[in-house]
């Protein structure tokens, strides 16, 4: 009888020296075509069930990706109970419907209450989402745990409240700075904008962005530091300035994209645009549809132009995070993701997704996940089994390890 051999030769935890460090490149064994089938099934069942299949679809998706993600030769497991996922989905659906109805029937008070409650509860929701996700990620029968309490989550969320305060200040500041409105020629009151007001606005914007970066930094670091493996906490080395630098570089990429695309579009369509503007005059009846499509087109262009910058940011953040985190002194991650190739991949995926009206999306998802995942190598001191054993001795109730999910290989939501 042919009994299988366990971990492949290169991965054998055979070391007798506890200081020996073993590299384990993470591996994805799924394929785009396979996931396309999974996704198509999900979409069709979603249509047939009027969208109520969504929580099952999510679970299948995560299970597909986890089941094909090999960390040191063993797949990840997603163990969330379907019941809980369905419950969460229904709660979300009811809230969304209530909000939509309130917004569309013009019940301003209710809408305002929804927004305020949503903002106030956002950290709590985030915290419980992370707790759920990490707690349900298992590897070799071991679970990860997210230990941050509500107080810690809210403390880390201070930039949110700082942003709210900033905008309130701006609102009242503009009121104080604004001169008396002057009646315009058409009889309407035209507000005047002074230099001081522009300055205040600019200052608020810069501070808001800094706060947003701080928020991202706080959350990411908390996610790693508060994730426990036994008594061993996650290890986190990036500093705030790293994040600020990534954002600045992202801004640079964005401006570059805008410049390049602007020049290209200008050169290619400069003539025809003038032609078009001459024609629009005769298109009176079409104007309504034209405006509608204009809005859609504008949103679409904004997404398109910002895509390289967003991909760049994603890649750099992934890199920074996965190069500098680990599990106490037992394990380290190294990442050699190249931002340039990731941006190129994202652009290719975007173009193909658009050309296929979205049907390329599963392939895109797999290719991006693969590039990110396979750029990461896990370095374990003394072998995987020793690590697992050590972790389990420290905590009895199945607290595990699956940092792979924590800071960027996210799939849910």
């Amino acid at each position: 009888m042919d009994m299988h051999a366990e971990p492949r030769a290169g991965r054998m935890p055979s070391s007798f020296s506890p200081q020996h460090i073993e590299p384990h490149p993470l591996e994805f064994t799924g394929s785009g075509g396979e996931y396309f089938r999974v996704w198509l099934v999900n979409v069709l069942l979603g249509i047939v069930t009027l969208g109520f299949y969504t929580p099952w679809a999510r679970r299948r998706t995560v299970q597909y990706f986890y089941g094909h993600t090999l960390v040191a030769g063993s797949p990840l497991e997603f163990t969330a109970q379907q019941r809980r996922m369905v419950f969460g989905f229904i709660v979300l659906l009811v809230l969304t419907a209530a909000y939509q109805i309130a917004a569309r029937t013009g019940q301003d008070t209710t809408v305002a209450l929804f927004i305020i409650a949503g903002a106030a509860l956002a950290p709590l929701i985030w915290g419980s989402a992370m707790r759920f996700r990490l707690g349900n990620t298992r590897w070799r029968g071991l679970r990860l745990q997210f230990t941050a309490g509500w107080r810690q989550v809210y403390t880390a969320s201070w930039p949110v409240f700082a942003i709210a305060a900033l905008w309130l200040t701006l609102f009242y500041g503009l009121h104080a700075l604004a001169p008396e409105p002057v009646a315009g020629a058409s009889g309407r009151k035209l507000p005047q904008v002074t230099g001081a007001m522009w300055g205040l606005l600019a200052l608020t914007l810069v501070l808001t962005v800094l706060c947003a970066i701080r928020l991202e930094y706080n959350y990411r670091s908390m996610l790693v530091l508060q994730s426990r493996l036994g008594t061993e906490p996650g290890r986190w080395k990036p500093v705030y300035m790293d994040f600020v630098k990534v954002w600045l570089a992202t801004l640079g990429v964005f401006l570059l994209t805008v410049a390049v695309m602007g020049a290209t579009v200008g050169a290619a369509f400069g003539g025809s645009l003038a032609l078009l503007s001459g024609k629009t005059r005769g298109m009176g009846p079409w104007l309504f549809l034209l405006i509608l499509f204009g809005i859609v087109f504008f949103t679409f262009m904004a997404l398109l132009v910002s895509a390289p910058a967003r991909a760049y940011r994603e890649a750099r953040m992934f890199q920074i995070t996965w190069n500098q985190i680990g599990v106490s002194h037992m394990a380290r991650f190294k990442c050699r993701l190249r931002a340039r190739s990731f941006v190129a991949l994202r652009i290719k995926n975007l173009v193909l997704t658009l050309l296929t009206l979205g049907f390329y999306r599963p392939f895109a998802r797999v290719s991006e996940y693969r590039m990110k995942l396979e750029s990461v190598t896990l370095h374990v001191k003394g072998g995987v089994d020793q690590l697992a054993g050590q972790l389990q001795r420290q905590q009895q109730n199945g607290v595990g390890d699956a940092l792979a999910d924590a800071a960027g290989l996210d799939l849910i939501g």
Partner: protein
Amino acid sequence: MTAAVPPPDSGSASAQAAGPAAPASSGAPQPVPARWFDGRSSQGRAVLAAIAPGPRGPELTLHPVGTDGGVPEHFAHDAVDWPEAWNPRRPPPRLAVDLGERGSLEIAGDGIARWHAALQAAGHRAGIAQRMQARWGVLAVVLLASVLLLVLFYRYGTPWLATQLTRAVPLGWETALARETLERMDGDLLKPSRLAPERQQALRARFDALARDVPTAPQRYAGYAPALRLEFRRGLGANAFALPGGTVVVTDGLAETASRRGLDDDAVAGVLAHEIGHVVHRHTTRTVVEQGVLNIGLGLALGDVSSLLSTGGALVTGLAYSRAHEREADCYALALMDRARLPTAPMADLLLAIAQEQREESKEKKNGASDSDTEKKARKDGPAGATGEAADVAAAPPRDAGSSPATRQEPAREESGDSAWMGLLATHPGTEQRAAELRAGHAPHCARP
């Protein structure tokens, strides 16, 4: 250091299977070698996984292998989260089976195929998703079902839901919205009417007469009795529109076109009846609700494919509903005019005349340079009937379908429906067809009174 690897022995497998702890049913397939991470010991334990049929489905028994031995562990059907075989032809190199609080089972290599075979042999009933995943036939059936469902959702589901939700919307909200809209339009799109007071009076009398003829209890919204009111404005060309909650606005252009074409007030009365139809059927509120239902519904169904597809679908479907509303309002006008013993043919002439004038206007604009624009503008803003446009054009109906002036809220008028695609993007059905129906006095799509 203990070896993490289960003994790679083929001997122990058969020995175990033949041992006292062997699965009860002797015809069961060979047990599958696996590693059990039970969450207690530091490493995976080598086990043999035997799958046997149970009362609620296959059940799992793990038989320990090796020198340390131990008692077999039994798992009821519900204690195991039976994993899906994503691709039977190409299983992943490792398969993890979730055993809940009792850890997880890891199977490698060709063991995976044997695991699935054993599961099948034990009478495992795969879920619908899994069957679709593995069999093209099932996938095709569900594909057809989902297309059918989308059509049903569009044809019956959304209109039904819109009716139910619209019933809950109070009249007060509609009138508030109407007031707000009219105030905003008065700022830039509309000017005070310059129609002679006598003419206004006459039209108002016709409107009030029609309003008195409105059946007291409309079938769909019991107890919905908005106060119908007519307003005159200048602007937006030849147009009339209904605001929710009972206000109907007529532009000077409409009345002027009618008199220019030698049409009497029965023509305008027909348009007013159409607008009253919009009010009584609460089409504005329905549109708001329908668009909301479509956005949510299609967002859920197609959101994962692409937002472009789902918003595009919602838009096109919303326009189809808009055309249905226009037909409904036409039916209402036919019924109301019939009650009032008024002809509907003049209304048809008026619609065709306006469509033709619009087409000529846009053709003129297209051909002429910008100076013809200003000329046209001057003529448009000039006193009513100043230009001698022939009255006989209405007799020669235009070839291609233009659009109607009688919009409910938006002054959206689109040009020729040359292609079917343009028809999909129109807010109104083709004018020619509408005119023919109005002239005939009945339309096939109208419900019998």
